[in-house]
């Protein structure tokens, strides 16, 4: 599954990863798998402000993922 990262998450592990997942998988499951696999973003990924996006929409951790889905994780945003 293609997973994309923005902001400080991308600085830590790059803008894109190909992550092997076992279906069925939820966004929360993917998040936990990334936390377990990549210690350098473990703390950041547990921040409530980190949003997951599928198909241009913010989704919760219970959102079910299909094999062809692409997930984006956005680090906490800061405008102005």
């Amino acid at each position, binding site marked *: 599954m293609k997973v994309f990262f*923005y902001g*400080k998450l991308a600085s830590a592990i790059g803008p894109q990863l190909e992550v092997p997942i076992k279906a069925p998988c939820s966004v929360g499951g993917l998040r936990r798998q990334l936390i377990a696999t990549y210690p350098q973003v473990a703390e950041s990924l547990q921040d409530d402000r980190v949003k997951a996006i599928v198909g241009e929409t913010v989704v919760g951790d219970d959102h079910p993922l299909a094999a062809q889905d692409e997930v984006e994780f956005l*680090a*906490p*945003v*800061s*405008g*102005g």
Partner: protein
Amino acid sequence: MSVVARLADLSFDPAAELHELTRAAAGDGAVVSFVGLARPDTAEGAALEHLVLEHHPSLTQESLEEIARAAAERFDVSHIRVVHRCGSLTAGEPIVFAAAAARHRRPAFEAADYLMDRLKTEAVFWKREEGPLGSRWIEPREADYADRGRWE
């Protein structure tokens, strides 16, 4: 009612934006604007080399439009205008222009205040300061989240 929300990848002129808004607002009695500037020092007190604003290919523009529309719907204003930079800025450059025109001043002040509180905490950008001591990601402060909470 008109809403302009623009992502600018090059330097923009706040005076020109204000001029445009004032021209469009002919007939209104009040125009209120805010300009955010890149400060010359980093959080560590060193000289800022660059302020970098990363953005998302589609969600950033959407977030600017959503915030501008929300201000137009919530307050009794006739025009909302938001311009926000992305890319690399140097000290003193304008980052954001947020403005409102209305028949009367109170809704114009409130709309501009609301725009900035939402832009600070919800506009889809990732901000980092680059200076002599390296690079540092900037996130909203507690006060920014508290200010955002005022509007709930």
